[in-house]
């Protein structure tokens, strides 16, 4: 456990409740994706952990250090990549990155800065002024700044919002490389595919509440569940005795049978089932399959939260 968030609440001046009691434990070395729509509280959560906003209630500790009382020790461990491209436009790339290292109290280390800039393909641009860079390059500079002081935890707030596909893939590679180095990474996103691609765990946040935190693998298993619906020519009252092994459900007032199966299993049993349905004397009208996606789970959770 590297970050421990207990019943964190944040009410802004004017009464807006951005966080309504978030409790979350972040494990060392993991990649946690916080998924949620705009205005869900993702940025407020990150801002409160990093010291940009003060919590109204509850507590956050980073590496065992309270982020308010022991802010120096806590913040020293954290690198933050903000959502907006906030950079000093007139300064050189190498200067803004070196500045960040100094600000975090670390001794100058040009070799380390070079390593970071090279890793992010920024070394060629080190003497360029920030304003001369493309949007994607600027985002890399933000990451370089966050990494300049060798943090153990990296927060990425919507790192790939408005970024082209190629750069997004690059960003994921950088994240994977950092994980190799043992850095704990928390990223917010509203792209489900991003969470799927790189996260170890996924948290869903909406309306200032954490609705779910789950291992991605477990979520993916739910994703693997498919449902086969067989529409019948004539309705049935009950599942025929011969089909009892399939654990079928009667749907649509007896006009359909539903079968749940796992695509990741060795055999889905569909062929056998269809054969046995016709052997039982039932006439098929149509068949359809549906898959529960992370998107469905997500949308379902968000709707529940809103209701």
């Amino acid at each position, binding site marked *: 456990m590297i970050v421990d968030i207990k019943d964190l609440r944040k009410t802004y001046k004017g009464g807006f409740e951005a966080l309504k009691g978030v409790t979350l434990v972040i494990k060392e070395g993991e990649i946690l994706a916080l998924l949620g729509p705009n205005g869900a509280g993702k940025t407020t959560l990150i801002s409160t952990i*990093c*010291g940009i*906003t003060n919590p109204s209630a509850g507590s956050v500790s980073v590496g065992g250090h309270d982020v308010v009382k022991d802010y*120096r020790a806590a913040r020293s461990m954290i690198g933050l990549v*903000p959502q907006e491209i906030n*950079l000093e436009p007139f300064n050189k790339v190498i200067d803004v990155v070196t500045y960040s290292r100094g600000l*975090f*109290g670390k001794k100058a280390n040009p070799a380390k800065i070079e390593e970071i800039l090279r890793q992010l393909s920024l070394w060629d641009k080190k003497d360029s002024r920030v304003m001369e860079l493309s949007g994607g390059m600027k985002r890399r500079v933000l990451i370089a700044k966050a990494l300049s002081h060798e943090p153990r935890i990296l927060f990425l707030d919507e790192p790939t919002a408005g970024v082209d596909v190629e750069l997004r893939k690059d960003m994921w590679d950088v994240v994977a490389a950092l994980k190799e180095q043992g850095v704990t990474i928390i990223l917010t996103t509203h792209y489900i595919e991003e969470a799927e691609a790189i996260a170890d765990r996924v948290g869903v946040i909406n309306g200032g509440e954490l609705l779910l935190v789950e291992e991605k693998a477990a979520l993916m298993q739910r994703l693997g569940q498919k449902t086969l619906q067989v529409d019948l020519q004539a309705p049935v009252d009950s599942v025929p005795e011969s089909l009892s092994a399939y654990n079928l459900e009667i749907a649509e007032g007896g006009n359909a049978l539903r079968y749940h199966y796992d695509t990741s299993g060795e055999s889905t049993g569909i062929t056998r089932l269809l054969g046995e349905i016709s052997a039982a004397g039932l006439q098929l009208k149509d068949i359809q399959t549906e898959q529960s996606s992370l998107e469905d789970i997500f949308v379902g959770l968000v709707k529940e939260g809103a209701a």
Partner: protein
Amino acid sequence: MNFTAVWAIYYSEMVRFFRTIAQSFISPVISTSLYFVVFGAAIGSRIDQVEGVSYGAFIVPGLIMLSVMTQALSNASFGIYFPKFIGTIYELLSAPVSFLEIVLGFVGAAATKALFIGVVILVTASMFVDVPVTHPWAMVLFLVLTCVSFSLFGFIIGVWAGNFEQLQLIPLLVVTPLVFLGGSFYSIAMLPPIWQKITLFNPVVYLISGFRWSFFGTADVPVGLSLLAIFGFTALCMGIIWWIFKTGWRIRA
């Protein structure tokens, strides 16, 4: 104390200054020369002496004070306002730095720039007139304290300002008039009696008077009072900044 961070802020602010070193250097030289042409040569030729000092020399301390105060104000207010404006303030807030360290970095840099400009003006002025410095240590003390206190004041304005207009508002509407009416170019003794009383409510009078005393040994108000004023003003600004950071006013939500 995170001195590395103080240095990082200070250095980065000074880089901005040195990037525009030509302007930073040339503009005070030109404006000082212009003041000398207008006040020294054109008007000054009709004024014999003020308190036993030639008018040209008499206005030097006021000129330095005028520039130092406005420069300290604008540098410090811009220094902290700019990160707020472009959003880079996030980094200061999420860094392991105390507010004292942030203030030291920004105010230190702004005060250094103002001090530099003050010295440039003094040197430029010495080329036009003979400027005696009777109490050099007192002169340095007044100069440095003015640089620091007005940089602190500028820092407050920068934190308070919500846009560029507000950033200009206080320097333009309050400070410039107070400095001009604070005896930069005249001795209080030259005013009608009633204005001699009213002008004592202007805090800048004490600063300019004390600073002028360090040059010529004569003052409009007692030097002790001037020292008290400058220390009082510095303490007041520090108190306000302490409060700003304690409450997070306009900085941390």
